[in-house]
Each structure stands twice: as C-alpha cells, then as structure tokens.
C-alpha cells in the first residue's frame, strides 16, 4: 500500500484541514467501494546522466543504509492517457531545447512539479455543521536552473522559481499554455539571479563555498491514481454526532470538529529524465475543546486522528469515548492547582518525548547550505559542525527511515518513498552510540554533506530542503516504565525535592523551544503519588541538554507531527536531569458573566428533545 498521506497534510500548521489544502486525483473520488489495495511496480533504470561523467561529491556518506525494500510497485511505462503528465513533459523538453535569451546561459536543469488535489472539509460544532465543502485544485511550480551544478541561480536570496494554477480540465493546450508562461517567467528570473550572484561572488571572498546542486539518477515511477473511500454524507452525520457530544459537558466553553479528507496525485518531471506520479491519500480529524479555570486561565486540548485509509480510523464509538475522556480530564485540569516555578528532573512520556526531539533535533539534523548573503547566524543551531561528536548519551541510536508506513501497527505520517526532488528516500543512520554520524540531506550540498539522502521535501510546492521523514530514537539501555518512574523519584530525592515532574502530554513547541505541558503531574518522593498541575511552561533550552538525558524507556510510541511538513518521531520516554519551568504570564478574561445556554433551564429543555 502506498500513499504517503500525511506527508501532504501538514502544510498549514494550525489549520491543516482548511479547504484548498489537499486535493484531488483523477477520477475515482469517493466511490464508496472501500479501500482498494493498489499494486504498482518500481523500476529504477539508472540511465546515464545527462551531461555525462560528473563525479559525485567528494564525501559520499558512508552509512547510507540499504535501500529500503520496495513497498511500492509502480509501472515504469508512462501512462499514455495522462494529459497533465504529457503536457509537463512536452513543455519541459521544449524549454530545455529552445528556451534561451541571446548571450545568456541556457537552463542546465528544469524541474516541474504539479499537484492535483481533491479534498473535502467538514466543520461542525455542538451537533451542527458550520460548513462542508469540496474543492479541486491543480497547482504547478517550475524550477529553472541556469549556470551549472557547481554554480547556479539558487542558494541566494530571491530565487524562488515560478508558480501557476493549472486548468482543472485535462486540456493539453490550456495546461501547456500555463506551464509555458510560468517557465518563461522563471527562466528570466533565473538568469537575472545568476548574474547578481556572480557579481556578489566577485566582490566577496567566500571560502569553501559548496556546489549548488548535485545530479541524481533518473526515476520512473507511475503510481495508479489515488483513491479514498470517503462518503461525505456519512461523515457529515458523524461530525454532527461527535461534535454534539460536547453538549453533555457544559463546562467546556468552546469546541469544534474539523475533518479533512483528500487525495492527491503529485507529479515531478525533470530534465534529468525523472518522471514521477505519486498518489497519496489523507484523512484527518481534529477535535478541539477549551475550558476556563476559575481564575480565568484558558486551557485546551485536542484529539487528532490521522489515517490514509478509512479502515485506519477508529470507530465513531471510540471517538465518542475519547471525547468523554478529554472533557473529563479538562474539567479535572481546570480545578488543578498551579505551580509558580519548578527546577528539577522531568520525565517525558513517549509522545511528549517525541516533541522534545522534534524541537531540539528535527531541524538540526538536516543539512542546510547557508544561502549567500545570509550572514553568520544562519543555521547556528545546525549540527553540521558537530559531525563526529557526541550529542546524545552513549547508549542512544537515532536514524531516519521514511520508507515503512507503519510502526507496530501505527501509521507513520512522515513516510514516503520518493522526495520532492525526485530522489528515492533512503534510511540514514544519524546517531550511533551517541555520536553524530550523518545528517539527512537534499540535493543542495553543504560543506560536509555532498549527497542527497532523499530528504529534499517541501511544504506545498516551495523549494525543497532537507527535512526529516520518520525519525527513530532508541536507547540500548532502555528501562521498563516502572523503573524509569522510580529513577525520577530517586533523582528528585537526591536533589532534595519533594516531588519530580512527569509530562504526559504537551503542545508542540517551536524551533528549539519546548511546548507547554497540557497534562503534567507532580510525582511525590515520599509515596510516589501523582498530582495534576497546570499553567506551566518550559523556559528556553539548548540542544546540549540532550546529552543530559539520564535514562530512557524501552517501549516506543509514534508522534505524528503536522507542523510545517509531515514527519513522524518514534521515541521512548526520556528522563531529563534538570529543566526549568515557570507559570505562564498571560492576561486571561474572567469567567463568562452570562450563563452558557447549556446551563439555562429553558435552553436545556429545548435541547433535550
């Protein structure tokens, strides 16, 4: 089964289910016939590179692990009924052959991407629909490179390629017309940018500038069009049913449900001969709830369900039970005491531990060239300069492997087979026995990383850059959960504290910042009892604290991140020696003056009917 579902989902950080996010495929939309297993074959012709004998970069990373077994089968032969693909290829060939302005360089590389998306979004609150909308979009991006792999118009400010909206009909001429205009604009910008960049390089003394781009083997991959068995009517009813559950909880001041279901056919063609059509599907349900504590503090929580096929979603009854549990816990949280300050050991359960790694490592283990003129502070937290040095405890292993789609039966939202630069994804061993060995990479080399690992990814059709896919973290000395908790207590005791802190869930943090805990517990040293606390946030931390992980658990869980590009982190629980937390300072409104309709007898009567 294919479908790198969530890979597409995360495009928009906070509202991943807005319309025109995700979208369509050709035909076969919501046919109600169930999820069909899709067969396809991968073929990998390794044709001779255009331009011939280029040596690949100097350091080919040693530990690029095995090619993952092909989970995908695709047809090597381009389908002859795909008008969009044909229009892209024909215009690409014409542009490579003929697009040139007198005395200016020709393109040496062109890549086109197109995204044909069909989506349905449903929003509901308190048992009634706010909206239910279908959308079909086709977007396109062109990337013309002039100069050479060694020096071209990229890796410098203002070099973004060109975008277009393509016709929704399979009209060969109209599609080519749109591609033609975008390519023309892109080429003109490209030659201007290259001239500007060359002038800059003549003026500045830049040492050890990496090359701008690396060649890649051509790929031919044609997956069958994406399908998803989504019945809008049924899900409108489900959305009503699920969102109506909150009426039972009058203390919840605000709640909503948003659902997104979509399919996408993603096209990549380039002048190296790669031709890809990748199919993907996604289902995403998010249910939010908000409550106010007595003194006004706003507290919220959410439930997120992500799937690629309907069958991966839990039954609605289970979701209802989840809502009940979420509401009950939020009400408990709203009555919990606050804590002004805490400094001491913190135990993160597996999912929040995944968020810690996301904040402190996800960006930092990606090789990113410094754009010309970006100055010295660029990528300061990037770990490239620490290659060969220890960044985690010696018992820790860390690798990224985008290929498998499940971890112990749980969907990995970050999985994919080919990246957005037409490179096959490979497993990369990043940390071995605590030592940073490799970074994941895209096709733009850096000083130390010269070869793509198939991690060139982008949100939407923006330029790809290195991003993690599915990051696996493990500790060879991992402890059973009970022992880890005991270690927390022991550490707190040694510090002379009455309690340690356990974080059960937290909001995702920003770059290099930990999020606010949603549910955090004091774990008392004397009898091991737990007590809920609220209102804490983490003070700033640095990547170096990861060396001070005291221990980790044995069991691992999947955290699927939808922030800025889908990724998954498979992580054990971790115990950090010392972190600072403080009560967040925010001005909250007082409790509502008016009674909610849920608490007015007359409205209840109306509703109970």
């Amino acid at each position, binding site marked *: 089964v294919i479908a790198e579902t969530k890979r597409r989902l995360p495009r928009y950080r906070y509202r991943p289910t807005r319309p025109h996010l995700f979208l369509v495929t050709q035909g076969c939309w919501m046919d109600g016939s169930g999820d069909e297993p899709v067969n396809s074959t991968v073929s990998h012709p390794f044709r001779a590179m255009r331009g011939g004998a280029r040596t690949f970069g100097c350091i080919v990373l040693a530990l690029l692990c095995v090619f993952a077994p092909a989970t995908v089968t695709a047809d090597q032969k381009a389908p002859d009924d795909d008008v969009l693909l044909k229009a892209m290829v024909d215009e690409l060939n014409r542009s490579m052959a003929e697009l040139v302005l007198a005395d200016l360089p020709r393109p040496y590389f062109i890549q086109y991407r197109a995204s044909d998306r069909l989506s349905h979004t449903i929003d509901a609150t308190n*048992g009634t629909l706010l909206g239910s909308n279908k959308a079909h979009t086709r977007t396109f991006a062109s990337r013309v490179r002039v100069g050479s792999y060694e020096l071209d118009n990229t890796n410098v400010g203002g070099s973004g390629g060109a975008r277009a909206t393509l016709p929704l009909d399979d009209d*060969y001429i109209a599609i080519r017309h749109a591609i033609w205009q975008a390519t023309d604009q892109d080429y003109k910008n490209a030659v201007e940018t290259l001239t500007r960049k060359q002038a800059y390089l003549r003026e500045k003394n830049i040492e050890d500038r990496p090359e701008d781009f690396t060649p890649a083997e051509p790929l031919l991959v044609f997956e069958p069009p994406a399908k998803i068995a989504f019945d809008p009517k049924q899900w409108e009813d489900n959305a009503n049913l699920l969102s109506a559950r909150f009426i039972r909880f009058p203390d919840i001041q605000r709640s909503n449900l948003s659902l997104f279901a979509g399919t996408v056919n993603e096209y990549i063609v380039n002048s190296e001969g790669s031709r890809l059509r990748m199919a993907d599907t996604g289902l995403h349900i998010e249910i939010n709830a908000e409550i106010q504590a007595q003194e006004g503090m706003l507290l919220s929580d959410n439930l997120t369900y992500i799937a690629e096929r309907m069958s991966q979603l839990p039954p609605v009854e289970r979701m209802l039970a989840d809502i009940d549990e979420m509401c009950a816990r939020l009400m408990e949280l709203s009555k919990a005491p606050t804590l002004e300050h805490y400094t001491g050991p913190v135990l993160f359960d597996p999912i929040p531990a995944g968020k810690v790694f996301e904040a402190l490592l996800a960006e930092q283990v990606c090789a990113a060239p410094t754009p010309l003129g970006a100055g010295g502070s660029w990528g300061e937290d990037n770990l490239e300069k620490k290659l060969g040095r220890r960044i985690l405890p010696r018992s820790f292993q860390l690798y990224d492997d985008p290929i498998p789609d499940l971890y112990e039966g749980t969907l990995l939202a970050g999985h994919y087979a080919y990246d957005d630069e037409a490179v096959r994804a490979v497993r990369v061993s990043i940390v071995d026995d605590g030592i940073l060995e490799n970074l994941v990479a895209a096709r733009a080399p850096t000083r130390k990383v010269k070869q793509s690992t198939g991690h060139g990814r982008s949100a939407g059709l923006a330029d790809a850059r290195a991003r993690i896919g599915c990051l696996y973290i493990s500790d060879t000395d991992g402890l059973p959960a009970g022992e880890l908790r005991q270690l927390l207590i022991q550490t707190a005791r040694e510090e002379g504290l009455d309690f340690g802190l356990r974080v059960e869930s937290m909001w995702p943090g920003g770059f290099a910042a930990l999020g606010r805990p949603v549910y955090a517990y004091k774990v008392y040293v004397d009898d091991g009892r737990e007590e809920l606390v609220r209102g804490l946030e983490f003070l700033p931390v640095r990547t170096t604290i990861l060396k001070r992980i005291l221990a980790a658990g044995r069991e691992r869980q999947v955290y699927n991140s939808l922030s800025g590009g889908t990724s998954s982190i498979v992580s054990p629980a971790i115990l950090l020696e010392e972190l600072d937390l403080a009560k967040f300072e925010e001005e909250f409104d007082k409790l509502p003056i008016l009674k909610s309709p849920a608490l007015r007898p007359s409205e209840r009567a109306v509703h109970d009917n």
Partner: protein
Amino acid sequence: MTMIAPLVLLAPLFLPASPPLRCALFAQTMTIPRATPSTDDHTKPSVPKRGETQAQTVAPHPLMEYLADELTYSMERLSDEDGTKPYYINYTVYEEHTAALSATLGALVEDRRSDERNLNIDLRVGDYSLDNTHQMRGGGASHASGSGNIRLPLEDDPYAIKHTLWYHTDRLFKQNVKRLAQVKTNLKVKVDEEDKSDDFSREESHVYYEPPVTLAFDRKTWADRLRKISAVARSYPLVYSSSVSVSAFAGTRFMVTSEHTRLQTPERRYRMIVTAYAKADDGMDLSQSFSFSAAREEKLPGDAEIEEAFLSVINQVLALREAPIAEPYIGPAVLRNRASAVFFHEIFGHRIEGHRQKDVTEGHTFKKKIDKQVLPEFLDVYDDPLASQLGDIDLRGQYHFDDEGVEAERVTLVDRGILKGFLMSRSPVEGFACSNGHGRRQPGRAVASRQANLIVQSTNQVPFSELKRILVEECQRQGKPYGLLFDDISGGFTTTGRRGAQVFKVLPVVVYRVYADGRPDELIRGVDIVGTPLTCFEKIIRTGDDPAVFNGSCGSESGWIPVSAVSPSMLVSTIEIEKRTRAQSRPPILDPPIEESQ
C-alpha cells in the same frame, strides 16, 4: 505593478500601517444600450418602492428568533462589577451563497462554491455620546475593531447558534469595557477634540422581512458555456492570458438590534467578466476587461453577446500593442461617461464620506465647504441607494437598509455646484447628527460611511459628437496639437489621508489622441491620470447627454462592497497625464504552445 488582473489588482491598497486610507474601485463597465424599449426616461435611475415586488407579510426566519432571544438575554444580564452594561447590541448574520467559475482557452481553471453564515456583533458600552468605538489619538489601535466574522452553523439549530452568540458576546463585552476605559483616559491626556460630535446617532428602528434566498446555480451548463467562449482565445497567440468567468451571489442578511430593529433582507448579484492580457514588444503589460452585472441570472447576456465582448477586449489589447506610448501631457480632454463616473467616484465620492470629516488623520478636503461652490453650477451630484436601475441596467449599489439598519436615503451632495451634504453612517460629524443610510461594510469589517449609487447630473449637456467638436476647439484655443479622449477606465485609487499627498490616480486603459488638425483619432497606451482633487473640478467645461453606469466593487476600510457610479461624458479644460511605470520584462521567449501542437 502589472496589469494582469485588473479586477483585483489593487486590492490591498490600504496599508494597515498607515491609517490614512485609500480606496480602490474596480471595474465593471457597461454601456447603456442606446435603444432601450422603455417609455421611461432612461437617463434617470428608476427607484422602486420598498417591498414592491415582495409581500410584506413574510414571516421571520427562525434564526431571527434565536438572535432576538440571545440579544434580550445579553442586554438584560451583561454587566460587570461596577455596573457597566452594553447600551447597544446588533447581531447581524450574513448568510452567503456564492458560486464562481472561470475558464481560459477552453478549460476550466476555477470552480468554487461556498455556503456560509457569518455573525457580526456590534456591541457598544458607554452611551451614544461617548462609547468604546471612539477614535483614540496617538499610538496604535486608533480605531476600534469589530467582532470580525464569526462562523455560525448553516443549520437552524438553536442550541449551537445561541452557544456561539453567548461565547462571543461575553468576550466582546469585556474587550469593549476595557477599550472604553482607554478611550476615556485618551480623552483626558490629549487636547480637546476639534469635532465634539457624538459617537453614535439615534435612529428610528425598522421591522421588515423579505423571504431569504438560496442560490440555484447550474454549474455544469455554465462550465460548458465558459469553456466554449474562452476557447475563442486559442486563435490569438499574442494574448498571453485571458479568461471568461461568472460569479453568482445570493445572500440574506438577518439583523436584530437592541433598538428593536428586525431586518431580513435578501440580495442577489451576478457578474460575468471577460479579460485579456498581452504585452507590447517593449514589455509594457496591457490588459483589458469588460463585465456584465445583473441582479438576476436571466439578465446576464447570452453567449453571442459575451463572446462579442470577449473578442472586443482581445482586439483592444492587440490594438494597444501597436499603439504609441503616451507622452506626459497637460491639456484638454474628454472623459467618456463611464470613465467620468469612475473619476467622480474616486475624486469626489470618497471625500464626502462622513466619517472622514471627523477622523483626525484624514485630509478634510470638503469639511468646511458646506454651502460653498465645489463644482461648476451646471452639475448636481447625489447618491441614491434606492435607485435600482438606469435604463435597463441594474445598479450594483442598490439597497433599502444599510448595514446599521438605517433606511437608505437619496442624499443630495451637490446642488448646482454647491456642496450640500455628506454620506452619513451612524457616526455623526459636526453639523450632521444623523445617518442617511450609507453605513456599509463587507461582512467582518467595521461599518463606515460609503457610496452606493453615485449619480452625476448636468444641465449643460450636448451630444457626445458635439462634445468632441468642442474639445477640438479647446485644443486650438490652447494651442495644443491634440486633446485626449478617455474611453475606458479600469479603476483607480485615491488617497484621502492627511499624511499622504491628497492625490488620486485613475487607470485608463483606452485613451485616444483627438487631433486639432482633423487627423483620425489615435489610440495610445500607458496613460495614468494624475491630479489633485479640488483643482480638477474647476476645469469641467461641459458635459455630454449620455449618462452611463460603471458597476464595480469599491474597497476601503470597511472592505469591498458593490457600488455604481453614473455620469455623462465630461469635457475638462486641463488634465494632467503621466507615463505609466512599465513592466520591464520582455514578452515570452518561446511561442505559445497553441500553435505548434495542432
């Protein structure tokens, strides 16, 4: 600035950072059919009686009851510790059904449908003379922000609807109590205000119901029509982009206020737009569009007429490619009717919006000019939201009640050249204590006084051919080799703020040189009219007898709203044009794919 999409081009013209606002008007142009089989005088707008076509006995929609219940509950019980209560609440729900389709070169490129209900809450604390909406001087947030659009369920579920009303009303109240305190402090620390008018006028309340509307839109038939018509452009390789689009809107506004106003008013708007874009060999972007507006789908033109309009914009941009570039010029000119209408909307209309006379960041061009001569005495100007048609053409700015629930009035702005009034919302200004039904907004924005149907009339009219003859005479008198004829204007913008220069710019797309020596008229390209408002009005010499409608959308601080402007052609003794800054990128290098692959 490129001209690829003339209809949306300048949308974000008002910059959030600088309070002096500008307006942009964009273009739906339309000629008046010369032979209108009507016994009425088609140069005068027709005004139907309110409810003429609808029985007045319509029952209110259930939504009205839910809004009223919650409003009553909130008015009775909302009160903070020191007893501050709201003195006014307005719940308005905009139920909007829209469909939009667009095709290019025979293929569909846009296909949208949306159905939504948005709640806007206007909640005021303080009293009519001073409330939380009062402008604060100095510092940020000088203007109060409203509730914005709050999504409301599409279904008439009382619990879910009331829950949403409750949640937002409570929060808005607290926010506004806080702002009122800030307003009071601001008043104490600043010098006395120039204009001590109240913040909110007292108005009559109204109860009026019409049946809600839904949108029946046959998207398949429309899609096929657009595909067929847009395919015509395939034969014109020099037209780099083109489109044929249709949009349909059916909406119902439900309004309930604590002053006992109850309004349930429907509105329908349809529009078709054809556009073409080309580039001159020197890189100048050339675009042209034409649109049809109507209040009913049946009144949109048939395929033949749309195709003709499409071919006409295509031929216009192709003719513009060959046309010489305009040179900076000062001299006499004729503004053709629709062009003149845009001119008045921008240069005059925006400066007689009432709230601008009070806002301390505004230029106050006309504030002290009441009962003074501002235009030649042969001109009258009024704004009439009640006018629904001119000849057979529907006016887009038509309505009976504005967005503050005030009954629309025809307002005399200029009587024989003398300034008589302003367009008023419920924000009074010195000498004008009441609204005249011009408080308008795009859902989600705060109401401001705006134009509806701005109508310019003249008593010094001659036929258009005569007007052109006088133009030639005027050239000869001034010793100019040629005068200018502005045949079409795509839109324009104006700056009314105090900080920016008090200037305007309209963007003419079809301009001819009319030679004094009798040579044929010559099309030129790349013209921008520039000027300062007060001086240009003095220079109107005479007008045509050919009033025409410009149906457009006007964007300003209270958002985009539908408007019309009506004017006859106008001869001005002096107008100043400048060269348009032109795009520097060359025409496409390769030929369009159209030619080769067939």
